[in-house]
């Protein structure tokens, strides 16, 4: 953990430049540019609200806000993983030529998506106002669930980036795993919809704890209980410990396999 923090600090300028590069490349040559970071979640929300709010008729008040409060952090999670899984392999040219801490690549992938995620909160806040939904004071509590989410994403990213060097299947499997994980997490529905006898199974999902704080503070206007916060941070720290452990264990061999 200490080494990771030191590397991130030492390479902060490079990480930031690489993250900005990723965003710039992502939006280059598109007419709307950075506006897409704002527009994307909004368009996705329209589709999902139509499907689940109008056609499937979930009886949830202000379903759009209910959904978006978890969908945005989830989208961040999946995009960060999609980018970072390829981050080491994709920078093979550089790894073979200069000596730099290899964590900069997955970290930069996560950072660029953090920027994207923070931008996407702007249309959400606007939507809340437009729909005359209360803008709860608990929004100011959001940095806490964000910390859990960012740590969890960073750990998963380091893990995937490392093993993808040795098994390229990971980048193919990951999309399928993520979409299964999406339906398994209470994002489009609420955990209350699950029969009580099956609920224990859903509680094994770390994403439940990581995402929980977002819905509580944005939709319900509540502060999560202490245990819930502790669980979310614990999941984040555990993910970083495992992910970075694996990454560090194998990083010296990356150059021979990329």
């Amino acid at each position: 953990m200490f080494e990771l923090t030191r590397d991130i600090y030492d390479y902060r300028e490079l990480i930031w430049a690489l993250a900005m590069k990723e965003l710039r490349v992502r939006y280059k040559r598109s007419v709307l540019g950075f506006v897409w970071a704002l527009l994307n979640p909004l368009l996705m929300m329209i589709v999902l609200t139509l499907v689940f709010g109008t056609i499937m008729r979930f009886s949830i008040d202000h379903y759009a806000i209910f959904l978006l409060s978890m969908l945005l952090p989830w989208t961040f999670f999946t995009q960060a993983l999609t980018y970072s899984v390829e981050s080491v392999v994709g920078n093979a040219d550089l790894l073979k030529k200069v000596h730099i801490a290899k964590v900069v690549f997955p970290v930069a992938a996560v950072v660029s998506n953090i920027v994207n995620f923070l931008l996407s909160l702007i249309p959400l806040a606007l939507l809340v106002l437009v729909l005359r939904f209360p803008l709860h004071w608990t929004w100011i509590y959001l940095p806490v669930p964000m910390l859990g989410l960012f740590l969890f994403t960073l750990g998963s990213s380091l893990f995937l980036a490392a093993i993808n060097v040795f098994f390229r299947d990971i980048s193919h499997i990951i999309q399928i795993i993520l979409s299964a994980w999406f339906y398994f997490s209470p994002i489009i529905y609420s955990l209350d919809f699950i029969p009580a006898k099956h609920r224990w199974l859903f509680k094994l999902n770390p994403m439940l704890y990581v995402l929980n704080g977002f819905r509580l503070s944005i939709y319900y206007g509540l502060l999560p209980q202490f245990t819930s916060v502790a669980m979310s941070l614990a999941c984040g720290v555990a993910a970083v410990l495992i992910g970075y452990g694996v990454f560090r264990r194998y990083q010296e061999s990356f150059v021979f396999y990329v």
Partner: protein
Amino acid sequence: MSRQPAAASSSVISFVDVVQRFRVIQERPDTLREAFARFHRRRVSYHDFDAVKHVSFEVEHGSTLGLIGRNGSGKSTILKIIAGVYRPSAGQVTVRGTVAPLIELGAGFHHELTGRENILINGLLLGLTRREILEREQSIIDFAEIGEFIDSPVKQYSSGMYMRLAFSVATEVDPDILLIDEILAVGDAGFREKCDQRIRSFRERGKTMIMVSHDMEMVGKLCDRVLLINKGELLEDGPPEYVIARYKNLVEHPSSVPVAQQG
């Protein structure tokens, strides 16, 4: 490998009995299925290949060292060990001071980004801080003769402009030790002259350089000392004229290489 700040000691690079072993796996398990299959059969087919075999040498502060040898002899591997890209399998490597590789120029360039954006990223990759890069930005652009194209994406550059920009960034980093891998054939005659000048000024300011080249005329002109590498072994270590003559002899009569050189 130990990396230390530049010191007063005269030797800035030291290799003691360095071995770089590559595990060449036949049909390396690149996918999970293959890994499982291999695990199941409990058979791994690989052989070890030593790209660098028990090489020892020292480089004096402020000297220019040439590495020559035929293709695949291990010259570039030695350069990459100095750069810290490979961790040697055995032996002791000490490098004192900052190292900047001029290895295959423009590796860090992104085609969609402009020249200016690429200068920043490449400079950071080579170990400069953002502020240092901004201070040097104008002289990098001037030296590379890019002009108004600096704010266009580098994919629109001619290959000459691309190489000039890369050379300009790498040399503007001003490291203690500069690694040069066969790149001086950059640009037209005028630009080559500027490159030569820059290399010479590097030397005059007491910087250390290690260059890999097949251009014997240049090696003879620029180097104080030359190492001849053959099949991963250090065959000869001495003044340029002598080692270059040995190399020419080696190329013309490959069979005359003494086989039992080590030991």
